[in-house]
């Protein structure tokens, strides 16, 4: 069987769960006090890579750009995907990058990996103010076929073809699942609803085996970790960081609240009397509706 090489690009993001997140008095995120974790969409991408590991015995590599503490995200992603190679691109020169500047670093990094990649995965988007462009831009820079919103995939390793299902949601229209086929290499951006499925006893046993291996590897993740600065990576300094970023955040504003056209009343949930008022209102509303 010819071998399959998979890379995943991931991101370290703030942990928004209660007890871990902190806010400044002005309502903005207090990044210094907030714990960080592997982004939820990145985690889904890592699961998709692990599917390739279990089904096709693929070799998985992970790349991220970020501060030195982003090795935490790499460790978490390794624990999910059983990756053998972890890349962290960390340099002050990369700071202030927009999605295009980030994509450039990731492209160079992926091309520097031990193997030539067949599939690169990214999450749908980041949870801390990102626009879902890093993935597609990295794909474009790599020159890979881009498949977005993928909810499942399989690979024919002999013919080097990938077959994927894409979830297409357009406002006002029913969801469509599109099945596409493309020759390797491809770049796949994973839909948030993606879930791997393993349908036979032997697949499940392989799943258990690799999962255990992944936990063992991630316990010693530093053995697999390589950190690159701009020079070691050999990037063109005009294409990364601030100089490589055509977009500039010039002002952040709160989304203005639209003026309410309906009346709202705040109900105290602990008061049974108030609750019965709500139930009454709901009954009224329902009785006014004609149910066919």
């Amino acid at each position, binding site marked *: 069987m010819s071998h399959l090489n998979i890379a995943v690009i991931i991101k370290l993001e703030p942990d928004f769960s209660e007890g871990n997140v*902190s806010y400044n008095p002005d309502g903005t995120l207090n990044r210094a006090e907030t714990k960080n974790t592997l982004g939820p969409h990145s985690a889904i991408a890592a699961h998709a890579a692990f599917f390739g590991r279990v089904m096709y015995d693929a070799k998985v590599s992970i790349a991220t750009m970020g501060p030195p503490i982003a090795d935490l995200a790499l460790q978490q992603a390794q624990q999910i995907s059983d990756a053998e190679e972890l890349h962290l691109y960390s340099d002050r020169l990369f700071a202030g990058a927009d999605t295009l500047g980030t994509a450039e670093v990731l492209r160079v990094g992926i091309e520097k990996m031990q193997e030539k990649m067949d599939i690169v995965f990214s999450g749908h988007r980041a949870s801390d103010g990102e626009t879902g462009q890093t993935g597609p831009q990295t794909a474009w820079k790599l020159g890979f076929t881009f498949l977005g919103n993928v909810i499942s995939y399989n690979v024919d390793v002999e013919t080097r073809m990938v077959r994927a299902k894409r979830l297409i949601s357009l406002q006002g229209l029913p969801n469509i699942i599109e099945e596409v086929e493309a020759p390797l290499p491809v770049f796949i951006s994973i839909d948030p609803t993606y879930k791997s499925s393993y*349908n036979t006893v032997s697949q499940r046993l392989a799943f258990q085996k690799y999962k255990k291996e992944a936990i063992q590897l991630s316990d010693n993740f530093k053995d697999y970790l390589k950190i690159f600065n701009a020079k070691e990576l050999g990037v063109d300094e005009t294409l990364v960081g601030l100089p490589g970023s055509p977009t500039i955040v010039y002002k952040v504003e709160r989304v203005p609240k639209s003026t309410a056209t309906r009346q709202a009343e705040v109900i105290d949930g602990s008061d049974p009397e108030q609750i019965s008022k709500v139930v009454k209102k709901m009954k009224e509303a329902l009785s006014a509706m004609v149910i066919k």
Partner: protein
Amino acid sequence: MAIIGGGSAGLAALKQLSHLGKQAILLEAGSKVGSKNLSGGILYSKKPKKGNVSNVEQLYENFLDDAPIERKITKYILHSTSQNKIYSMDLTTAHDYQANFGCSVLLNKLNSWFAVQAEEAAKKLGGGIIPGVHVKSINWNEQNDATIIQTDELDEFEVKAIIAADGVNSEVAETVGARKKFTPEQLYQGVKVIVKLPEDIINKRFGVSSDEGAAHLFAGDVTLNHIGGGFLYTNSDTLSVGAVYHFDSQISNPTEPYNLIDVLLKNPLISEFIKDDVPIKPKIDKNLPQEEQLRIRFAVAKLIKTWYEIREASLSSIGRDRLLKSGKYKTVEDIQKRLSAIQEQMTEKFGLTFGTDYLEDEYGAKLVPDGKRCRMRKPYFKNILFVGDAAGRGVFVGPRIEGLNVGIDDGVRAANAVAQALDKNDFSENSLGENYSKSVDESPFTTDMKEIDKDYLKIFLDAAKDVPKDIIGSRYGPILKMMSSGTMRGIAVKFANILGYDKLLPMIESEDTYVRVPIQLAERLGEPVLSSYSPTIPSIADRIANLNYNDDHLSHIKVLNPTSEYIKKMVTLCPAKCYTEESGKVIIQHEGCVDCGTCSQETEWKHPRGEKGIHYKYG
């Protein structure tokens, strides 16, 4: 070869099969082994007078050194209660009787450890554990003699034999027709809460060292006239507080199971056992801007979380070592200083206060088979062997409850029988089934349930020697008199054995034994106990909200007759309050279900699909 169910019995079977060099897979419905298991729980190692059992420490060679057990129980005390009066009897001798040890355990942790040991051995033979798979049916193809397993998650597959370890509500047993559902007379309903309490406080309060523990049992008015009782076991840094009642007693006089726990928690002795310092959240000023309210809420949540983490660690030997090793603190005093600093910040900056209360961390419920009444006489069907709870194998003799060890012993016996069948390539009932059945019949656990043991009986008579005879009442008077004399006791026990457990049980397991006699004991001989506070007990809704579920939009339970008398009782008896009655009809909301099986008698009851349903943190 497949094992269905990853509890302690199923895992024992996998471990033993692997030990005998046989390939096997184990299917577990939970997303992880241990996530659906719940027990009281004390795990015993038995030292039988005659016969042999496979104890946990023989099956898992490194059990005593490495297994995550909680504490070895060294004190075993029975309390009779009447309001605030309590009369205590030391029954440690009964606990030690024919036992190498008995330790408190939490099944999520322990079964996970068993799973690692069993899987390691199984993997070498190409087998293993597959979690997240729910078996829905088993079929036999008569033409090619194949046994086919169908699941909700996987493509169907063939096996040679099956060990069914799918618990008290065994779907395997029911779907193939190996036995009927257990009836209320054959079951106990158990409910349990886990109370958090730092290790050092447990040691001091219960007078034990870090590896020792205490078990406290309760009878009397805390039973609310039900046949059964309460228990409190010490774990490493939690307490298990539970109530176990005969289910027919619950059916004839329904009481909300959570109320039975609440009565225990409100008993002054237990209130004092569980109490701790707890932070009380301040009310946030609703006039502040939304962002500020949110910021305060998150800041308070974070401080409380940190406070709990550091406090818990500072009050446990392992925790302190961990903090010191982390390099953040140089000495134990440093940890204390940090804790005070956080506490100061909590009170001064955010107006938090500290009070005496208790902290409940998990609620759970389970049916327990009463082996004396429901053990399967033939624990097999075609090429399926039933073990543990699935075969109805719980042992209740006196206050001591054994189940985990019985299941483990069954698992080993079933594995031995299957290994033999594989060698002979004969999986017929006459060979595989009968071999296993014979082995189970010879098990000391089975003979214990058939025969009354006079030495064990004597322990109770000795413990009760200070009890005035008139309390025991006219009913037990003559028996007691006979039992007190050495020679007569032998004759009496022989006579009792002729009568058999079946006839004696209704006499022994009566309201007299569990309710009236203990109340009188407490009133006449008991000492008053006072509690300094009254615990804030969470509502059942809060308890359910605090549990971890993977919701399935499909209900695994279907009500058969929404107006039957039995199903109406479920409104009261469902431990998760899933049932409500609306205009004479009972409806179910399955989302909060803890898969206990209380309602299974008159419902179409299945375990949830793979990975779905309740996921216990402690178990």
